[in-house]
């Protein structure tokens, strides 16, 4: 107990929030692996709060007046912490079924005492890392508790009677995490509603807590709730410090989440902005984070600028390479069959990361590249100008070839458009016209279709915008 209290006063003297946060970590530091055991076995339930308040007073450097609200607060916090340690040790040491629900509940008590400490004004803004630590672990304990609950029960919970008209109730799969989200939301309110002058305001903790909340909402699959947070943030933006005065780590994560939220809402222009700035600000050695950012930035850029990731960009991140390389290659060479295969093979991963529906649209770019090759394969006239009138049936042949798995390079193979061909999507010219119409509609191609004559008239300049032709 004395060790804990000495750590406490040391952190106080230094005014270091992170040192203070370390005193309440549920994970022992590598330098003192025995820490939790030592604290727990140092006292017992009957004397825990007396012990702590006594030790806190005893180890104080200066004489402390009593009653001292700070000591009262921290006595409560450390008492809750002591009980939580007990639950953690029990869960870690048991050989049968660890009770993570109990750990979660105990840790929630810690969170509540900390929140109380802040809302009563005893804990100052410099101690915010304590709030971070408590919130972070609250989330992870909740996830653990839910995992164990799921493993030991059936998935869907049912209304067993009551006054419900229908049989199945909510899918209570994430009970504790949902609870944790509510607690973290209170932390958010705690930060945003602080009216103290900026220097000592809890507003400095806003972005960390916001990120934690986003993380929790994403895990809960209720991303829509993030919108409320964003709305609250933008409402109080006027009396907030500017974004760049916050710690960089908070901002990178925040921009990443905002970017992903916009990405999922198909607001690709905004998503590009936020993800790009997250990417630029992200620490170069944070490989995992860069991977995450790029996972969404690459599909975004594919749509907004028709940009493909270069092999050089992907090479430091093998995971990203495996994810995007086949698709990228297919688009680059304009091979529809390779694109379809790559999309189908990656579907599971893409869906998991929620990028499938966006990547799917890359097929337009792939098709554009294919049609562009048809155009480039055309004859030049006497003045060296390329033929801008292309028969729909020529495009049809290319698409048929492309979908059948042939390379678009050997375009000299003359295909008979009346034949049923491979029988897949390219079976009739109406569909090809439709695809070309789409190209024009999306401004990937410039020109128009003359249905009567069965030709596509391409613009004499910039027929394929952005590709140098």
């Amino acid at each position: 107990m004395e060790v804990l209290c000495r750590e406490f006063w040391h952190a106080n003297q230094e005014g270091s929030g992170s040192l203070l946060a370390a005193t309440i970590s549920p994970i022992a530091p590598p330098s003192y692996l025995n820490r939790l055991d030592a604290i727990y076995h140092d006292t017992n339930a009957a004397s825990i709060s007396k012990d702590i308040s006594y030790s806190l007073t005893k180890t104080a450097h200066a004489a402390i007046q009593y009653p001292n609200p700070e000591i009262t607060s921290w006595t409560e916090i450390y008492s809750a912490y002591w009980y939580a340690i007990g639950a953690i040790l029990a869960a870690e040491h048991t050989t049968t079924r660890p009770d993570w629900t109990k750990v979660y509940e105990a840790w929630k008590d810690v969170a509540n005492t900390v929140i109380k400490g802040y809302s009563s004004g005893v804990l100052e803004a410099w101690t915010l890392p304590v709030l971070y630590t408590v919130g972070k672990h609250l989330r992870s304990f909740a996830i653990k508790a839910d995992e164990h609950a799921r493993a030991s029960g059936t998935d869907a919970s049912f209304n067993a009677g009551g006054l419900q008209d229908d049989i199945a109730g909510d899918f209570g799969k994430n009970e504790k995490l949902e609870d944790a989200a509510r607690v973290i939301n209170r932390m958010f309110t705690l930060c945003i509603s602080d009216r103290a002058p900026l220097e000592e305001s809890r507003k400095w903790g806003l972005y960390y807590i916001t990120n934690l909340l986003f993380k929790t909402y994403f895990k809960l699959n209720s991303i829509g709730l993030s919108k409320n947070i964003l709305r609250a943030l933008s409402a109080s933006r006027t009396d907030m410090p500017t974004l760049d005065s916050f710690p960089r780590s908070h901002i990178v994560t925040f921009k990443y989440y905002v970017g992903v939220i916009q990405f999922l809402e198909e607001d690709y222009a905004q998503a590009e902005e936020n993800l790009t700035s997250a990417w630029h600000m992200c620490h170069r050695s944070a490989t995992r984070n860069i991977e995450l950012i790029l996972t969404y930035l690459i599909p975004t850029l594919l749509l907004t600028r028709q940009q493909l990731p270069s092999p050089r960009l992907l090479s430091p991140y093998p995971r990203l390479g495996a994810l995007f390389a086949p698709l990228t290659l297919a688009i680059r060479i304009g091979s529809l069959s390779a694109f379809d295969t790559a999309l189908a093979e990656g579907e599971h991963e893409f869906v998991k990361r929620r990028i499938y529906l966006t990547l799917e649209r890359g097929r337009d770019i792939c098709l554009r590249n294919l049609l562009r090759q048809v155009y480039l394969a055309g004859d030049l006239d006497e003045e060296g100008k390329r033929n801008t009138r292309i028969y729909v049936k020529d495009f049809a042949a290319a698409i048929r070839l492309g979908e059948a798995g042939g390379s678009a390079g050997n375009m000299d193979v003359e295909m008979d458009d009346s034949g049923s061909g491979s029988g897949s999507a390219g079976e009739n010219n109406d569909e090809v016209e439709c695809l070309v119409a789409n190209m024009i509609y999306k401004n990937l191609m410039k020109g128009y279709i003359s249905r009567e004559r069965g030709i596509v008239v391409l613009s004499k300049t910039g027929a394929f915008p952005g590709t140098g032709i």
Partner: protein
Amino acid sequence: MSSHGAFTSVSARRTFARPIPASSSTPSPPPSAAEKAKRDWPESVRHYVQRAFAAENTIASIPRQEMEIKLKKIISNSAENNTLGTIDWVKLPLPQQMILEERARPPLISANPPWGNGLAPLSLQETNVKSTDTSSKKRKSSEMDISQNGQEKIPPWRMASVRNVFEDRVTHPDKRQRNDVAAKVSSKSHHNLANRKKRFEDGQSGYLSQQPFSPSKASTPQDVDQGPIIGRSQDLEKRYFRLTSAPNPDTVRPLLVLEKTLDLLKRKWKKENNYSYICDQFKSLRQDLTVQHIKTEFTVSVYEIHARIALEKGDLGEYNQCQTQLRALYSQHLGGHPEEFKAYRILYFIHTSNRTDMNDVLADLTPTEKRDPAVKHALDARSALALGNYHRFFQLYLDTPNMGAYLMDMFVARERLNALSNICISYKPDVKLRFFTEELGFESDDESARFICDHGGQSFLEERDGEVRLLTGKALRFFETARNVAFKKVDIKGQI
């Protein structure tokens, strides 16, 4: 422990009676009981006291008197702080061990701290003696059980388990897993239930008094939770009322009757096609199934049929309720037509343009499900739209399995406008009306012409050489606007 408990408790009582005369009137063992005489001490505390006095725990160097004082302090202190329920009494070192520990250690400060309130011995106790430590470790596993079964407030899962008692009465040998399910009702929904019950409590007595023949004592709120009932009603038809009190078995129809009800409803629906009647009847049917906890293939078919009828009538609210239920029922593998309804879900999410949910549906599909014709159709329709391939989409529209066309009808107009503005921008100078009819899945030229006129585009239609043509270049901006209006947010009821 309980074997010698009877013996020790006697001695404990006797010793306490002596030093504190006032407590002689109280039969309860605890030491500080003098003032708060009639206090009902928790079992664990009593065990603790018994252990403190047990012969094998006596330490020769510590007089009994001193131990008693210490014990009294521990308990009264914890009673004052309201920690009687939270302290793990089994783990707590015995008073004599604490004293021993204190003696082994030199006093840390000369004077009692002012906040000590004369309880210095307790607060001085900074480290546990080795012996208590090991002994508590040895006992750990059994202690966990005790503390878990301790008598704190009853946790929600225990409240839920109360009703299992009643479940056993029901004869559904095939539905063994329901016990687990019943026990898993979340505390939150429990809380809501309790609130709702409270809300209706007032009106309830009046309602029940109108039914003098009601034999069941279902009026108390606690009864609501007490598991499934078995109905006794033989009426085939029943109007739907939202439950505001525990269901009365006299008005609930048992499964055999419900099966006949479903047949009757199916016949009536075919013959009369009266949706408001059918919907009402199906809701009461669903309610009867729920209060009797019937979860079988029959339940699935009730929800499926109701969903299909709601779909046919465009009642999205009711349809969504059924879909939600079906999703949960399918996860229990009770039969039915999960693929058909998964396909509906996909089509529905096309309608609502809900990408998040669409992504979740895609994530849930198994390879087998993807090969199912209905699911495959829905997936193809989705991808055709995603890629702007209206040609393919309208071909799929004309060839929709099951009742998916009802769902597709909801967004087909919007997609037609989309295709129309697409065509207007890319075809020049004009296009035959016939082309629209074929490409946009209309049944006749008349129908496609009407569609264009309905959206105010009649001025762009022109008859030439006996053929109607649409002047694409001029109509472009016009349809673009109509399209944007059509794609504005869909109004969603009872969304899943």
